[in-house]
Each structure stands twice: as structure tokens, then as C-alpha cells.
């Protein structure tokens, strides 16, 4: 395919990935990379670089909306960003030494885990402020968010294991060029027991900051081809925006089932491609 049709096709696929990501809550970065690698035959390193930039774009847009609504907990986000940014630097340094077939396999596995994580039930019970971790209380992490009948106050537990899982989420982000939102949500939702709304909002704030910690290394290693990053970032950004608007009217439950199956198949194909390259 020649220009400009190649870039137009890439932009269309990225739009689709961003739309899907917003609709089923997976995030565009982890969907767009396999599309670029399997569908367009693009080297996984360029694909990861472009996806990581798209992650930063969508996170900045989404986090701005949440921040304005007063749902995200900036204190928790900033504190956990210490773990995710350091993890992201480690992950990016690991990515530049690993073979691209190994990256494809790890990517496929991470994608499967992400699908499984998104199927799990959300915990509903809140932790009261009094039951908070002493360390979390000292750091003044418990907060509140605007509920239907006034502000809802919530506590924070499991700060140390949560911090550790956040480091892993950061490593995955830098290693694979993804936002790793699913893993951040896992840490905040399951381990630190934050309300789901706060988790989603805060994770959006963190995703961009985490991604920024590895993108500098990607830039230096030549992973960012502007002619690819541009259509991908613009496509995913527009798709995510459209998806957020559609979210209220689309049959989300049905879409989720269909696309989670599709994404699982893509994940297996990524693993197969990685194995195929290493075998030949």
C-alpha cells in the first residue's frame, strides 16, 4: 500500500481501536499494537512506540474530564506514580534488549490477562476512613468523591502491596508500550479497595504520567516514527472521544462479549506470531 492510503488505513484502524477501547474499557493502546503488527505487518517496536504516544494523548484528554469532576484522587495518583514511573523506566530498558518475538509473546499473554481482569466482578464494599492503613492515613490518602447524596468518604488499605503491583504495572507499560490501565485498576480496586469510580479516574491520571516515563527511552532508541505515530495517536484519540460519547447509547454488554472474544483471538495470534518468528 502506498501513501496516503497506508496512513489513512492506519488512522481508521486506530480510530476503531480507540472506539473499542473506550466502549469495552480496555484502553486503546493494547488493542492498536496487535492491529498494527498483525494487520499491517509493522515492526512491533514501531507499533509499541506509536501506541504509547496514543496512550498519552487519550489519558490527557480523559484525565482532564475526571479531574474537573473531582472524582480522581490526586494524592493517591501522585504517590503511586512513584512506583509506576520507576517501573516504566525499568520496563522500557528491558524492552530495548529483548528480541521482538519475545515481546510479541509477552504482549499476547498480557492481553489475555487484561481480558480476564476485565471479566472479574468489581468490589462494591467501601473501606471506612477509620479502617484505613495507618501509613495511608499518615499520607492523607483517604478522600471523598461527589455522590448522588453529598460527598462519599472512603478509606485506603493495602498500600504496600498496592504500591508493589503498581511497580509491575509500570514495568508492563514500559515493556509493551501500553497504558496498563487494567493492572492499575487491579491494584487500586482489589488491593487498596478504592471505590470503582475513583479507581477509573485516578488510573487515567496515572496512565499518561507512567507512559511518559518510558516514552523518552523509546524516543532515544528510535521507536517513534512520526509518520506512524501521527495517524495512530490522532486515530485513537478521536476514537476514544467518540467511544466516550457512544457509551451512553451503545449496547455495551453485547459489544463487550463479542469484542472480548475477538481480542482473545488476537492475543493468541500475537503469541503464535512470536513463537513462529523464534522457531524459523
Amino acid at each position: 500500500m502506498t501513501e496516503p492510503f497506508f496512513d489513512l488505513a492506519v488512522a481508521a484502524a486506530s480510530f476503531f481501536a480507540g472506539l473499542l477501547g473506550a466502549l469495552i474499557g480496555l484502553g486503546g493502546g493494547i488493542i492498536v499494537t496487535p492491529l498494527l503488527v498483525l494487520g499491517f505487518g509493522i515492526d512491533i517496536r514501531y507499533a509499541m512506540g506509536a501506541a504509547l504516544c496514543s496512550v498519552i494523548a487519550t489519558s490527557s484528554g480523559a484525565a482532564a474530564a475526571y479531574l474537573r469532576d473531582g472524582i480522581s484522587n490526586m494524592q493517591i495518583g501522585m504517590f503511586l506514580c512513584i512506583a509506576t514511573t520507576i517501573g516504566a523506566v525499568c520496563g522500557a530498558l528491558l524492552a530495548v534488549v529483548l528480541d521482538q518475538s519475545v515481546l510479541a509473546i509477552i504482549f499476547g499473554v498480557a492481553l489475555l490477562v487484561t481480558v480476564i481482569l476485565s471479566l472479574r466482578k468489581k468490589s462494591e464494599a467501601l473501606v471506612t476512613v477509620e479502617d484505613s492503613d495507618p501509613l495511608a492515613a499518615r499520607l492523607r490518602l483517604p478522600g471523598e468523591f461527589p455522590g448522588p447524596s453529598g460527598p462519599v468518604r472512603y478509606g485506603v488499605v493495602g498500600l504496600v502491596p498496592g504500591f508493589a503491583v503498581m511497580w509491575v504495572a509500570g514495568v508492563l507499560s514500559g515493556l509493551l508500550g501500553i497504558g496498563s490501565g487494567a493492572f492499575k485498576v487491579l491494584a487500586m480496586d482489589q488491593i487498596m479497595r478504592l471505590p470503582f469510580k475513583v479507581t477509573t479516574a485516578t488510573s487515567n491520571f496515572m496512565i499518561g504520567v507512567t507512559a511518559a516515563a518510558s516514552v523518552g527511552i523509546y524516543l532515544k532508541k528510535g521507536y517513534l516514527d512520526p509518520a506512524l505515530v501521527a495517524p495512530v495517536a490522532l486515530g485513537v484519540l478521536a476514537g476514544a472521544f467518540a467511544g466516550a460519547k457512544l457509551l451512553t447509547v451503545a449496547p455495551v454488554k453485547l459489544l463487550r462479549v463479542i469484542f472480548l472474544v475477538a481480542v482473545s483471538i488476537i492475543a493468541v495470534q500475537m503469541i503464535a506470531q512470536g513463537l513462529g518468528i523464534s522457531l524459523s
Partner: protein
Amino acid sequence: MNRLTSLLAQVMLTGTLIAAAIIAAGLVWYLSAHLGQSPGDHIFRGEPRFLESPVAMVRHIFALNEVGHRRSLVMFGIFLLLLNPLLRVGLAGLGYLLEKDRLFAGISAIVFAVLLVSFFW
């Protein structure tokens, strides 16, 4: 904190839109000079050195007789996009400092330092 968060939200949103506009303009400009060519993303070659530093990028945008100045404009837009989280952390840290919240000013400073090191080492 409320005024700070709404300022922060404003900066994040406007910054993203400005960056996206520059990227879009740069892409059209770039593609108009590369019509009918095949993209080369199938094989990894890395990127030229002038795309690695912001100063070199800006210099390249205006170096009209050099190869790659159109790509440099796209890259400059992308660089602005990538600067957004850095700005986000920096502004938050500044806000904490103004509130005399030394603990969180310190935490923001740590995150900011990690980002700076990863960007500019």
C-alpha cells in the same frame, strides 16, 4: 486545590488539542511530499538523530532545504503531546508547594525527577 485542579484540567485539555492540531497539520504536509511512496515501518531501522532532541527538531522544521523538515514538524507536535504529563506533574507539585503541603510537593518532585531523567539523560 479546586482552582488548581481546574487549571490543571484546562492545561491538559488545551495542550492535547494544540498538540493534535500540530500533528495533523504536520502529517498532511508530510504526506503531500510522499504521495505514492511506500511506508517503511515493516522493518525496524530506528530514527534519525535529529528527531531525538527537541532543539534539533525545531531547528529542522525551519531548515527547509534539509531532508526531514516535514517529519520534524510532526515530531514537534508529538513532543508537545509527550510533554503534557510532565507539565501535569510539575503544575501539581507547584500547587502543593503553594499550599505549603511539603509532603506532596516532595512526592510530586520525585515523580517529576524520574520523568526528567527518563526524558533527558
